[in-house]
């Protein structure tokens, strides 16, 4: 071999020398399984009967992996795997800290829930046009976005999940879907391109793309101007992805047009990826610039939560009510980022996880409600309490949970956030959180009152659940998601511990950086600097 003639070099300068622990492989398994099963579904696209079984197997395996990863991170701390054996900062690293692992876990749950629900909802044409491959691709894109430790790689995962979501959004190609998809596609594309431009500036300024490396270099950089510009550009791009006011208009224009299962997974995952990216960039990488942007973030947060809730009040279509509630929730998550204190961030982490589960469940619920009532129009729906009492119970639980009323999971994070706001004297932010919670309660309880409590509209006939095909699998799925919110509401202690740990890790990025650089020997570290 030609290699023998070359001068001898020490591979330890460039490579990770120890074999990764078997448990560390869990960090890449969602990616591998997601892509393998998406590929299998693509190859069996004509076989619409076997394809769902393959897809559900894949979703279950992904869920098992993220559960395993979550436990692994919970017990052993941050997990890192350097792709292709290259030492950081040269190789792309996958890093699972508590935040990433938790969000990946919830994504796995949400993915499986919507996948099962869609068994009855997606018809054969939609299966043939790739419902399940797109779903798996989007899910693995989302999970990898939560786990990657490389900023350009994050951009790639954003595009992967964007492509998957485009595919899901236009399945069916109805007129309103095409209209919604056009707005969704353009605005999201502009947002990711802005993200790419910000990545380019990061590379120009720091000469690296590894998040831990950027964080290390940004911390010792004296010039505030360029760094703050980059942070602001990131804030703009991700606020657009997260649908925060005033960049929220694409969301209510598009989320109600596809199937409800698709709307559910969009509401559960996509905007939260934007929130995650904001937390990661502004807290782990540019913490000093978050302090400078804090007031702007707080204003955006307050405006999003209030206008989202007011928007929800003004809608007649149940699906569009939910679209605005997603925006309102984003505002509440951003409030913790604006405050930046341990209590606030803990509240944000808890609320993000809560919102992912509850918004998904609400969309699935409205799917069943729409099928049972025969309409999504609040003027005409009604009488479901008589025909579907258990669905009414689920609906009431979810309505209370999304409004932040006890005894469900929305209560605790809001308490944290209100307390954190008052601690720093931001009484107006606390007031915004409370008022938006009040308005959300009105909007969602009105939905409950009209669709369930009111007697059925004379022209309409409400079906019982036995007559609604989506309900047979949908109700157990909903019950499971409701169970999560009830448990988190009644016994919040373990959830609060996890979110406190997330907040601690976010406020002390040194742990993240050290975990990424752990495999690097001291000699090589000197060479890099």
């Amino acid at each position, binding site marked *: 071999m*030609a290699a023998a*003639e*070359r*001068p001898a*070099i020490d591979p330890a300068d460039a490579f990770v020398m120890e074999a990764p622990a078997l448990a560390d492989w869990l960090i890449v398994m969602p990616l591998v399984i997601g892509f393998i099963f998406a590929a299998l579904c693509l190859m069996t696209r004509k076989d619409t009967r076997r394809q769902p079984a393959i897809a559900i197997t894949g979703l279950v395996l992904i869920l098992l992996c993220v559960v395993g990863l979550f436990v692994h991170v919970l017990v052993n701390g941050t997990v890192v795997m350097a792709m292709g054996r290259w030492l950081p900062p040269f190789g792309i690293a996958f890093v699972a800290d508590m935040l990433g692992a938790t969000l990946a876990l919830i994504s796995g749950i949400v993915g499986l829930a919507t996948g099962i629900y869609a068994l009855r909802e997606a018809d054969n044409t939609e299966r043939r046009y790739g419902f399940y491959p797109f779903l798996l691709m989007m899910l693995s894109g989302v999970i990898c976005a939560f786990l990657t430790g490389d900023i*350009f790689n994050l*951009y*790639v995962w954003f*595009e992967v999940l*964007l*492509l998957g979501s*485009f595919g899901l959004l*236009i399945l069916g*190609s109805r*007129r*309103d*879907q*095409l*209209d*919604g*998809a*056009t*707005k969704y*596609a*353009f605005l999201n*594309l*502009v947002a990711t*391109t802005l993200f*790419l*431009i910000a*990545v*380019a*500036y990061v*590379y*120009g300024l720091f000469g690296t*793309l590894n998040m831990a490396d950027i964080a290390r270099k940004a911390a010792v950089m004296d010039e505030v101007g360029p760094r703050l510009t980059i942070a602001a550009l990131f804030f703009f791009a991700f606020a657009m992805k997260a649908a925060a006011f005033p960049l929220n208009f694409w969301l*209510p*224009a*598009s989320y*109600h*047009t596809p199937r409800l299962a698709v709307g559910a997974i969009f509401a559960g995952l996509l905007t939260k990826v934007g929130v995650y990216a904001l937390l990661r960039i502004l807290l782990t990488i540019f913490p000093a610039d978050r302090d400078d942007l804090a007031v702007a973030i707080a204003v955006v947060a307050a405006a999003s939560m209030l206008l989202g809730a007011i928007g929800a*009040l*003004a*809608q*007649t279509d149940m699906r569009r009510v939910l679209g605005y509630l997603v925006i309102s929730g984003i505002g509440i998550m951003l409030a913790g980022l604006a405050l930046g204190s341990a209590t606030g961030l803990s509240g944000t982490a808890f609320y993000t996880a809560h919102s992912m589960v509850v918004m998904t469940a609400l969309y699935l619920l409205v799917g069943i409600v729409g099928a049972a009532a025969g309409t999504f129009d*609040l*003027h005409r729906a009604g009488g479901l309490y008589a025909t579907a009492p258990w669905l009414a119970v689920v609906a009431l639980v979810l309505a209370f949970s999304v409004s932040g009323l006890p005894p469900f999971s929305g209560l605790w994070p809001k308490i944290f956030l209100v307390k954190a706001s008052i601690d720093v004297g931001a009484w107006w932010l606390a007031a915004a959180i409370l008022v938006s919670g009040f308005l959300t309660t009105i909007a969602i309880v*009105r939905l409950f*009152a*009209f669709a369930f409590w*009111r007697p059925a509209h004379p022209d309409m006939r409400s079906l019982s659940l036995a007559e609604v095909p989506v309900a047979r699998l949908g109700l157990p799925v909903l019950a499971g998601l409701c169970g999560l919110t009830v448990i988190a509401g009644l016994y919040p202690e373990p959830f609060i511990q996890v979110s406190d740990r997330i907040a601690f890790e976010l406020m002390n990025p040194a742990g993240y950086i050290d975990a990424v650089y752990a495999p690097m020997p001291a000699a090589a570290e000197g060479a890099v600097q």
Partner: protein
Amino acid sequence: METAVAVLTGLYFAVSIYLMLSRHIIRILLGTVTLSTGANLTIFAMGRITREVPPIIPSGLYLPAEGAANALPQALVLTAIVIAFSLFAFLLVLVMRSYQELGTDDTYAMRDAEPEGEPLPPLGY
């Protein structure tokens, strides 16, 4: 050299913003394509531009030649071009389909998802 590319990038961004402010979808589409080209040029300029030395390691050596071009921005731009290309292909088909279905490319007239003049939600129980 970077200055010239920076000016060019600025021009691209100006053109793309002008196009994206239009009401017509096809112009917005061209605007987003121009925007991603501008982004690619930005990455390219950020990697510092050198001339005529390709970043290929000669046979038998471990390091590329002195003054070789920076390979990383090239890889990033290539990835970004591929992604932008696939998204452009998708958007083109989407725009064509929605023009056929909706019969307009004017964003003001595209009100199928959010119809104009919707009634208020029920005000009384």
